[in-house]
């Protein structure tokens, strides 16, 4: 039997977005409200299954009476608020955030980054050829996944997914401070010596492709990665009796990546090591 959770009925709040009246259930964020009203708000560090840390600041909007802009992803809607999503001030901050990010990070595998850079007329090259970049190469230290921190925007999603919000493995954390901050396991060592259980739930939430399947990383390097040629097959993991939902991404009759739907009310897109990576037997054709 499928049960649709109804929850406690919530009061509706009324406020305005871009001068238009809107009503959302109490507890909604401004991002929820803006999206419900059909506004296009870019987000990077926001994850549909995680509590936002509001680190990227690309979703900022203007709230009347607020000295600074506010991140739509974490600010809760309040009755009587006047929210503006596309003022010059908002566009300016989004443009600069994109310029700062693109000048310090490789956004080539970040979905929509190129589109936003065009939309907000960002010019990441303006900081000159000497603009500092963390300058990290990909870390390939195991067969299952790759950590390419040159593509990392420090959104904290992998840390939250690995830690108290989902996996409770606490294998990674942010270390260092400021521009030198990095995602690392203890003592910044290799994954194999860490508390990592290879569930890959960090890959599931990574918004930039900094964390990727080894298969994807190798195929990108070989120039054979082609998302348009991939199919997605929904199935159920057969490793144990829990029966998590899997989405198998297949290219040329090979499973190249495994994800899980985030709207599954039990697993919320999380899998274990077997579900995420244990699919080679399917392809054993001998």
């Amino acid at each position, binding site marked *: 039997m499928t049960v649709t959770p109804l929850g406690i009925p919530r009061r509706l709040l009324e406020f305005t977005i871009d001068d238009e009246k809107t009503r959302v259930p109490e507890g909604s964020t401004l991002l929820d409200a803006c999206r419900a009203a059909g506004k296009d708000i870019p987000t990077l560090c926001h994850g549909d299954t995680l509590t936002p840390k509001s*680190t990227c600041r690309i979703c900022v909007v203007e709230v009347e009476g607020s000295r600074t*802009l506010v991140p739509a992803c974490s600010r809760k809607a309040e009755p009587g608020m006047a929210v503006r999503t596309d003022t010059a001030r908002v566009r300016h901050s989004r443009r*600069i*955030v994109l310029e*700062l990010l693109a000048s*310090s990070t490789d956004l080539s595998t970040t979905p929509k980054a190129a589109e936003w850079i065009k939309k907000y007329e960002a010019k990441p090259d303006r900081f000159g050829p000497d603009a500092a970049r963390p300058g990290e190469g990909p870390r390939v230290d195991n067969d299952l996944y790759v950590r390419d921190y040159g593509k990392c925007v420090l959104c904290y999603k992998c840390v939250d997914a690995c830690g108290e919000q989902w996996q409770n493995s606490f294998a*990674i954390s942010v270390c260092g401070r*400021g*521009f030198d901050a990095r995602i690392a396991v203890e003592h910044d060592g290799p994954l194999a010596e860490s508390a990592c259980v290879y569930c890959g739930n960090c890959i599931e939430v990574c918004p930039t492709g900094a964390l990727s399947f080894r298969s994807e990383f190798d195929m990108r390097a070989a120039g054979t990665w082609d998302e348009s040629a991939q199919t997605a097959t929904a199935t159920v993991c057969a490793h144990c009796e829990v029966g998590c939902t899997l989405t198998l991404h297949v290219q040329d009759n090979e499973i190249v990546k495994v994800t899980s739907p985030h709207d599954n009310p039990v697993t919320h897109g999380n899998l274990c090591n077997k579900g995420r990576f244990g699919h080679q037997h399917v392809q054993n054709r001998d």
Partner: protein
Amino acid sequence: MDLHFGAGGPTDDERAAVDELLGPPTSSWEGADRRDADLRWARGGRAARGRRHLLLPGLHAINDRVGWISAGALTYLCRRLTVPPAEAYGVATFYAMFSVEPRPATVLRVCTDLACAAAGASDLCAGIESRLGRGVQVERSACLGLCERAPAALAIKAGDPVRTAVSAPATVQEAVLAASSPDSAPEEPSPTTAVPQAGDPSLTLLRRVGVVDPSSLDDYRAHGGYAALRRAFELGPAGVIREVTDSGLVGRGGAAFPTGRTWQAVASQPDHPHHLVCNANESEPGAFKDRVIMEGDPYALVEAMTVAAYAIGAHRGHLYLRGEYSRAAHRMQHAVDQARARGLLGDDILGRGHAFDIEIRRGAGAYVCGEETALFRSLEGHRGEPREKPPFPGETGLFGRPTVANNVETLVNVLPILAMGAPAYAMIGTERSTGPKLFCVSGSVDRPGVYELPFGATLGEVLRLAGVRDGLRAVLLGGAAGSFVGPDELDIPLTFEGTREAGATLGSGVVMAFDDTVPLPRLLLRIAEFFRAESCGLCVPCRVGTVRQEEALHRIGERTGAAAADDIALLREVGRAMRDASACGLGQNAWNAVESAVDRLGMYG
């Protein structure tokens, strides 16, 4: 939580340092030898995880004993506190005073920040480096809060116990002596030397500095101490809050929020326990007033915290004291111990049934921990990163409970409010900025130090009092997060509204004077370096913006006019985004000083 600990244990020294803080381990789950009983009972859960807040003191214990934090020591501390090693590593690498790489036992931190830079810190540094061998690590440091005695150096020699020595004003010879044998270095001058007005009967906040013996509770009481607490008990909690509200007291840490309102908000919260936090992480370049109060009149802060706790219904107070302030920490600890021994802290203060105690927590070198939500995270044993507000601390603060976080100066103002009554206190100063205010005056003046003046005194009056030297080129108001004003603006009234109207900021009361011998572009670059180094890295505008700001100032160098115009435009755009979109005050104010130098002083024009 299934924690994974790597191989490798602590050395005997490291284990002893941790055990001295936490006591010996009670089971193999905490790192003791394994017994059969341990296999039948896993000690974990909430009680074990609830000791996370001891992580920062634990890191201090190891660092103080050995000078750095090894992988084995960190692992042992993690076992003792049930903390994931990756997170502990993230915390240890967050603070400037810790190192996870081996280093010599002695670290000499030479301040190269604004006041010290103007007093020749770079020559001092070079001289020290040429004299000291490999046994001492010399580090160029952000402001050490010793601006009245610039240039300053702080030596920390790890051991049992850890020893520190301050050399200020430092010469190469004295700094080398402090680093090579901290025990035989001359004692620091009395805090009275930082208060040129000491002994002046018109003083309110500073009246006891230099007059009382800071180690003597009796002397404090003989000079009017603990009269305010007795008055508070007469008034009752609601009465105290009413007095504070009516006095018009606003926070002196920089945000200028009405203190009575925050107290009322917490006092009326049904959620318990309530917490009191005293923010003594004074790290704004140019600020040293809190240090002078804690060194010169420590019981005043103990009494003020007791009054505040009584008013808001808190039974625990946390004094978050800047890690570099070693003398202040000793004096405060002594004062707290004495007060506890005499029944002025504890379960039944003065026999009035109110229970309150103060715990002193040392910071470890992070300016951002002056931001209240970052300070809470730091106290809780996490990286000192700020979080989004709302919810505000009055609702969700330390350990998720309603919390009042006040600066040292704000709290000690409560004593005269109760002593003289709110109406008399509100008569001091101006209508919207009431009471006395402390100013930290340093730089190009003959008598640098902390000055107390009623709100409303002009910038020129403060500078004349301190003996400003000829050839004044610029004054930095409010510290690195504040703004420059020119020598033609000395009639700015030093009130919250007056500075705001003038487009400047009072901040925490920093007044730094620079004469025309100081190269301003070099100062701006130092400010930019400061923000780059102190950004916590949480949000993009600040993490990358502070770097791009520093790079642009490097590129500009000494250039002016059209040659600098492109980079000035770029600075303006990045600065605007930092101000609008950064997560906390650090990033929001990181561009203030540069902007004011361009717009008010006409730099690079």
